């Protein structure tokens, strides 16, 4: 398992990402804005395991799990 940098706005459904705070998320949905704030997006994990979301600036650097 390895990680590579990715910008939040480039994250796609199906990606597994790690946020700067160490939280990991299996992305099942990307909402293009947050409460009308268009410089933010919302990454959502909606699985049998949990429903969780994180909101961040679109230019936030995350880590994408690869391999």
């Amino acid at each position, binding site marked *: 398992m390895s990680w590579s940098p990715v910008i939040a706005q480039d994250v796609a459904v199906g990606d597994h990402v790690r946020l700067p705070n160490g939280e990991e998320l299996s992305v099942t949905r990307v909402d293009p804005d947050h*409460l009308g704030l268009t410089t933010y997006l919302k990454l959502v994990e909606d699985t049998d395991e949990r429903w*969780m979301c994180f909101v961040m600036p679109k230019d936030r650097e995350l880590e994408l799990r690869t391999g």
Partner: protein
Amino acid sequence: MTLLNQPVQLLDGTSSSLGDLLSGGVALVVNVASKCGLTPQYSALQSLHEEYDDLTVLGFPCNQFGGQEPGTEDEIVAFCSASYGTTFPMAAKALVNGRHADPLWESLTATPDAEGKAGEVLWNFEKFLIDRTGQVVARFRPLTDPAGPEVRAAVEKALAS
């Protein structure tokens, strides 16, 4: 469909029902969090709770939005009391969205907002107004000020019914 019979587990570990908590009045149900930019809404929620005799604000801590309610029950109680002097009842931590959402929240989120949009809670501090019969009569999105004219008008209309 009335929600009065819905069980509510409180933060102190005791069990109640929405009907018992309302005691014939109306409720403003809110998913809350301690580490959110909207957390200061606790002040307005407490003001509402104090201002209207037959209104019960009912907070449901939830950690599903950015992990902004990570604390234990004791930590949540201590934070709310110390920071905002809250006296309204607080439920146990809840799941408001997803496949394992609490039944009460499944019912609440079926209610559309003023723009006709139902479905998921969008973020911390969404508010649902429940009337004396246990019907959801209004839904307000997170950015709506709890003490603003929109919520007040809906509360006063529900109380007058």
